[in-house]
């Protein structure tokens, strides 16, 4: 059994999600009696393989479980995939996977481009690191869910405005449900991102107190973009709250949720391709580490580097 689990690769579950996505897409083209079962089967197989893969990594990695950028993206993808599967089973006539699975596959792609080396941890920073990572994960997943609901709201509203009956196999949830979901996701994302940012500051303060950091790197690009992301999510949540009592409020909320996803995507791309000192060893001098495919957007700032890299002077 262990040997079988150890052979599960990212390709296994990514391919399963891709087939489930293709099945979802085919709803728009033709009808089929068995498509739903095939779709759920592939999505469930993907989630199972994904779960076993993460479990295997958590059990066999020498460092703290799931503490690399690679694991973080895969964990975010896993949460979205579980959500997609659950929503597909609960609402079989809604093409949820058509919206969620591309995000899942994108996160898996981002994982493949990011570092697998675990972020260095010390007993003193482990708890704060876990809190920081978990809040940031929750914020990102909430943004993704909110944006999907917002996109569905706009599609549903467009259909209702054109006075058309729902297209075959493309029945969206009600505007009321989607607006409520989008609004709640925005609130959760704002709170979680703020908590993630605050816990990151505490984490750095602990490191500094223990002499692992000379000072908190406030001007580090990762901290700056994280700060910008938190500022945007909090602003978006406040704007959404203000708009909720206006007749065109749900549309504004839906559009804001899409902007939030755009901001998050930019932040992730910046994390993947930009340069940062975030997460590199303390007391290190010289040029900034190179891209950051090794860096993670929402990660703990920790004192030692995972591995030597060109351009990093120890």
């Amino acid at each position, binding site marked *: 059994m262990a040997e079988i689990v150890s052979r599960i690769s990212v390709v296994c579950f990514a391919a399963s999600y891709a087939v489930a996505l293709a099945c979802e897409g085919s709803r728009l083209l033709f009808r089929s009696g068995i498509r739903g079962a095939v779709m759920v089967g592939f999505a469930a197989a993907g989630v199972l393989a994904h779960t076993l893969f993460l479990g295997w990594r958590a059990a066999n990695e020498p460092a703290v479980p799931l503490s690399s950028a690679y694991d973080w993206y895969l964990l975010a993808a896993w949460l979205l995939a579980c959500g997609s599967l659950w929503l597909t089973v609960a609402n079989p006539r809604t093409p949820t996977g058509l919206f969620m699975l591309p995000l899942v596959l994108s996160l898996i792609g981002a994982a493949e481009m990011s570092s697998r080396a675990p972020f260095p941890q010390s007993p003193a920073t482990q708890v704060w690191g876990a809190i920081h990572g978990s809040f940031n994960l929750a914020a990102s997943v909430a943004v993704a869910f909110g944006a999907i609901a917002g996109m569905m709201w706009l599609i549903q509203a467009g259909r209702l405005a054109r*006075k058309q*009956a729902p297209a075959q196999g493309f029945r969206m949830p009600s505007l*009321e449900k989607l607006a409520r979901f989008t609004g709640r996701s925005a609130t959760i994302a704002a709170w979680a991102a703020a908590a993630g940012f605050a816990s990151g500051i505490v984490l750095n303060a602990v490191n500094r107190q223990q002499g692992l950091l000379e000072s908190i790197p406030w001007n580090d690009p990762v901290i700056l973009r994280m700060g910008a992301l938190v500022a945007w999510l909090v602003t978006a949540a406040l704007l959404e709250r203000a708009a909720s009592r206006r007749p065109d409020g749900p549309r504004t909320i839906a559009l804001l949720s899409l902007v939030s996803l755009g901001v998050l995507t930019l932040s992730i791309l910046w994390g993947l391709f930009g340069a940062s000192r975030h997460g590199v060893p303390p007391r290190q001098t010289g040029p900034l580490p190179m891209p950051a495919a090794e860096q993670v957007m929402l990660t703990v700032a920790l004192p030692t580097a995972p591995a030597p890299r060109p351009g990093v002077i120890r």
Partner: protein
Amino acid sequence: MTLAFVGGSHRTVPMELRERLAFSAEQAAVALRRFRQRFPGREGVLLSTCNRVELYAASEHDSEPPAPRQLVDFLAECRGIDAALLAPVLAGENDQAAVHHLFSVASGLDSMVLGEPQIVAQVKQAWALAQEEQTAGPLTGGMFQAALRTAKRVATETAIGRERLSIPSIAVADFARGVFERFDDKRVLLVGAGKMAHETLRYLRDAGARDIVIVNRSMARAEDLATRLGARAARFSDLLDELVRADLVVSTTGATEPVVTLDLFTGAERRRGGRPLLVLDLAMPRDFDPRIGARPGVWLYSIDDLGAACDANRKTRQREMPGALAIVEEEAQRFMGDLHHRSSAPVIEQLRAGWTETGESELDRLFRRLPGLDDTARAEIRQSFQRYAAKLLHSPLTSLRNESHSGPPHGLLDALRRLFDLKD
């Protein structure tokens, strides 16, 4: 000929005659009892709905089912109608055509509203009643089960019954449910008491709506309607206030000018707190100024908008017709193939029994000549004999089954009887 049906539907029988011909459940039970006495040993199922009356008859083995003319006379007698009136408007079919017809009926392809699903339950009821009255049998049983299977395939593999066709059902299922998730916490305002109001309210009630207010120019009429529909009546002069409180408006007045003008609505809009409003304007001429539909948070649908959605759905159903007919044809052919194959069962049994008997006698002879064989060896040899016989029989049986697809395999059966000296 083993299967037959006679019957008429909304296509051929005038409504007055259809009303006289229709059977209630009790009358159908009495008719089936009479059928059993009149045609002993024959199977019969009576399908009577508001749009059709059809009598299916079948007979196993070599006896014939009642001729269509006898079935027409029987129906006329049961309902006390002159058979001469019925004969010109009823249709009759035999065998594959009868099967094809039942499968089409069960799938809703012969219904007044193409693809309507209620017919499946009616076919099930007809079959259950025939079972209760002991006029059902293996042939009609197989035929009706295959009909229900066909209906299920048509429903799942095509979209013929998927789209709604009535304006109130589309208004609620495709539009109101698109805006609101639940209706038990929504205020429904009914303006006027037009004919479509009842049906729309019925759908809304099914969806969970409980808080319903009726506004009508005549307070007495509003109160009367409110009592009947379990709603609350309000004065017409309170229309503005009711608009402020409403989440969903169904408007069906007979007014010749818009009842809710843009100015009136703008007054209500300011006090609504940004809540969305769904308006189903089912009146002609319209009760709501169409410019209200452009206001943010307002979803306004006129009867023409909903009618257009109905037409689109109707066309969708029509487009599914070829696929549905192909399923019916395939299932009818499969059923007839199985039915024809059943007729060869006695010959196959004789053939199998003859070969088994010969094999057993040869085995006895062999075992007598080889007394030293132990039980294991004997069992092995016996099994080999059986496998050999089964393999020899395989080709003729396959030929018989293949031949059954194009009709009763009389030629092959006759050849087998003559070649292997089988008795009838």
